[in-house]
């Protein structure tokens, strides 16, 4: 397995370089270093000298990817791309274009994102699996029909609606939890109850329907028939046999998103005033803070690659037939 992981890490390097190149090209197609400087320096009384000085200080006065004026390797190394990318590979994100240390901000914001995303992920998955198993238990009955219709309705409603309706009902009318805000440590609990509830309810429609499909596919297989023929109760068949065998597709979807939980949820964090990483990236795009954008894209890519590796590894845990070679 170690060999496999090493190989995957080596494969990841060119992928990360590629992602970086694409990020650079896309960003600088839309924004020039002059635009970035003007955004940071403000709108009033900005002189061309100040713009030049800002660019020079941050190394944005050089070509983006290729320096035709330089000689030898400097053509590639004396560029914004090389200067800004190299440090990323040792996770040294440096300062943002506004001057704040990006690593510090990420470390600070990541906990808020996790405080929201982890409960939504765990409770959501358990709820979806339970609901899907119950529907599978009552398959081909009116319960199944009504439940599927309800799930389709739930998944058709916009996530924003759940947020606004949840805040209105639970926070504003019933006065049960704060409408928005955040605090550190255990004090965060009262702030995340509502977004977690909304996140779980908002995800039931699509999640349960997906799991129901998986379970129904498993239920039709021979080993289930054998279990029933041996007299196993229906609940035992579902929870002991079907669930275990359905874990591979469930894991495929679940483990890959595990590392991405760090990156948070933009809308949820924005509406609930939760200072996570979701809004960090969008704020950076809005303020044309390229240093933050490239760091977050890089981090997202790394986490995604880790997620894929974890998925592969998890297969070996739930299915002994799978070997990583």
């Amino acid at each position: 397995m170690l060999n496999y992981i090493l190989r995957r890490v080596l494969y990841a390097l060119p992928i990360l370089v590629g992602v970086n190149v694409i990020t650079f090209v896309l960003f600088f197609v839309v924004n020039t270093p002059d635009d970035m400087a003007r955004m940071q320096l403000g709108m009033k009384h900005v002189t061309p000298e100040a713009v030049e000085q800002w660019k020079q200080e941050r190394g944005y006065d050089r070509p983006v990817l290729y320096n035709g004026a330089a000689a030898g390797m400097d053509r590639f190394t004396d560029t914004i791309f090389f200067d800004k990318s190299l440090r990323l590979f040792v996770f040294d994100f440096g300062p943002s274009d506004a001057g704040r240390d990006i690593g510090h901000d990420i470390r600070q914001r990541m906990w808020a994102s996790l405080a929201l995303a982890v409960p939504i992920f765990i409770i959501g998955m358990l709820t979806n699996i339970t609901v899907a198993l119950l529907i599978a238990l009552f398959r081909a009955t009116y319960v199944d029909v009504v439940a599927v219709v309800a799930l389709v309705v739930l998944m058709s409603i916009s996530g924003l609606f759940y947020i606004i309706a949840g805040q209105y009902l639970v926070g504003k009318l019933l006065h049960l939890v704060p409408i928005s805000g955040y605090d550190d440590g255990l004090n965060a609990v009262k702030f995340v109850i509502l977004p977690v509830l909304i996140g779980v309810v908002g995800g039931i429609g699509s999640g349960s329907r997906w799991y129901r499909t998986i379970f129904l596919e498993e239920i039709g297989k021979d080993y289930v028939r054998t279990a029933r023929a041996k007299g196993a109760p229906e609940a035992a068949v579902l929870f002991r046999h079907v669930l275990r065998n359905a874990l591979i597709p469930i894991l495929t979807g679940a483990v890959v998103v595990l590392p991405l939980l760090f990156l948070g949820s933009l809308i949820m964090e924005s509406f609930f005033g939760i200072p996570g990483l979701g809004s960090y990236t969008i704020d950076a795009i809005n303020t044309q803070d390229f240093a933050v954008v490239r760091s977050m894209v890089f981090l997202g890519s790394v986490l995604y690659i880790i997620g894929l590796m974890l998925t592969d590894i998890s297969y070996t845990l739930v299915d002994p037939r799978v070997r990583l070679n």
Partner: protein
Amino acid sequence: MSSGASIRGGGRARRAARRLLLVAAALAGCGGRPWNDPYPAADAGANIVYSSFEERPKHLDPARSYSSNEVIFTGQIYEPPLQYHYLERPYTLIPLTAEEVPAPRYLDRDGRPLPADAPDDEVAFSVYEIRIRPGIHYQPHPAFARDADGNPVYRELSLQDLADIHAIADFAHTGTRELVAADYVYQIKRLAHPRVHSPILGLMGEYIVGLRDYAAELGRAYKELSAAAGGGPVYLDLERYPLAGAEVVDRYTYRIRVNGKYPQLLYWLAMPFFAPVPPEVDRFHSAPGMEEKNLTLDWYPVGTGPYMLTVNNPNRQMVLERNPNFHEEFYPDEGDPGDREAGLLADAGRRLPFIDKVVFSLEKETIPYWNKFLQGYYDTSGISSDSFDQAVRMGPGGEATLTERMKEKGIRLSTAVGTSIFYTGFNMLDPVIGGYGERQRLLRRAISIALDYEEFISIFTNGRGIAAQGPIPPGISGYVGDEAGVNPYVYDWAGGAPRRKPLDEARRLLGEAGYANGVDAATGKPLVLNLDITAGGPEDKARLEWFRKQFEKLSIQLVIRNTDYNRFQDKMRNGNAQIFMWGWNADYPDPENFLFLLYGPNGKVEHNGENAANYANPEFDRLFERMKTMADGPRRQELIDRMVDIARRDAPWIWGFHPRSFALYQAWSSPTKPNLMANNLLKYRRIDPAQRERLRAEWNRPVLWPLLLAFGLLFAAAVPAAIGLIRRQYRAPAAGGGTRTP
């Protein structure tokens, strides 16, 4: 037996319910307080004002911060020498840390004194000598900490010293010291520091003697120092580099020397740009490793003001707390007529500030903010268009009153016409719409009449604004209201109010311009104009459609050239825009700050200035040059009136509107007078925390029955499912014909 079991069962259920409620109460923070209270229980009943910020401030360094969302913090912490009187109108400058508002001394080219009424061309320099009050002290800060021998505790910090330091509060020792004139001079020098990037360096470089060369000198010195240290940030000791335009006279006096006359300097002296920065604080924050921990002066302001920043987490919360070393300052005991009746002098003569702490929470969306305001968790609120109808009713004459719901809560409304202008500009360099010939002038005037800004204000701003008659907003000296102030090219005075000229008049002007019925008489082609804009949301779509319809009234085809912000800025800089929308917010209450937007040498394309329309009228420019150095008075007003008339005749802008800001205050807030120039208003605010606590509890009683109902329904739904499951389990083997083993 069964009855006993039932009683026990009931007791168990009650205990369980009680535990559940206790857990819920614990989650909510404490017992007896509203469950939805977002603030810590320890702060209940405290003298704290709760506010919010929508996006994190970029800079808190007084040499850099310029945006309103930054000045809300820096304005309470830093104290420039002057401030605006809280109650008096028109806006009046009064001393803050200075002993008096300085009067300039004029000198000729050889340094000889000139009389106060010397002509502009004879005045080579103006000298402002500012004497500050002794006995003012800085907030506690580690940079001031001294050991038993009087040496700074944290003078030479190493990376190792900072290993366990993550915030300023982590330093064990703090100290203070008296404010001295040298701190003000140091800050003026900082405007030219190559790493500070002060937005006013370019502007001040024109006025403060030697500042431009000083910036170049510091740039060279910094480069050398940085190179000697192997690159990267280094500390540049500005005390080693004298600046001719700013010098210390004695411990409490300093002198600023400007080129020629620049009376507007006094207004700048009321902004944080000219607040004091102690050199030792700058040195402290420049220590290696500080920047990596975000412990910079840009994030940890240090001042003598009524408040100090004690929590600085721009990702979540910023907290200002009372500065224990704040000097004596008292609530004004005089105001305008009507202020006493409005309760604005109830605190006259009382020592400032009144509030102990101000908590700013990050609140990015307007809906949660508004709902929390209604629950009493914010003390003031603006009104977004989403919640406007809930809060305000507009009368037929445009007067705003609160809805019954707001009145029941005791909420008060405060409105003020902003010292800002939002206008539609014509690019005067454009061959069709620009230029100074009669044809182009008539075309612009026709469009000015057709573009019905009263309708725009009513539809898109909920009536919050007044149509502008010229470039100067109300509240700024030089503004003329009523009939004398009406723009005669666009309005008639009828029934005691300005009335937009009829559309027929616009059509007539269009015909005279050679575009009758929207067709160019010279070419026979329809007149097509372009509106360059940055728009994205659905509400923008309606706005753009409105614009198109306004031009259609004159049969002019309007092409909307929607683009992203960067491209739009490029177009403006290169002069490729034709018609555009722009705005300006006053830096200070002087007409120069608005009329300079039409001054030729400020043209955006040629001079990279703020004159976005690239308007250049030699007569206007001549009058501007005379007006800008004059003191307010009839002579100056005469020049302003002439300039405004020239601009109205040339019509480089459709004058647009001045926005009217609406603010809501909770019942427990003291009466407040809008002051759009001052940025240090928190010290005048007072609240009644006991009343707030009582009303919050009353407004936020938890409603539990829907929760119990939901649990009941869930249980009711689970019972048939459970029964069905049990039946199925027992039926399945039988259906299969097998036998069941126990």
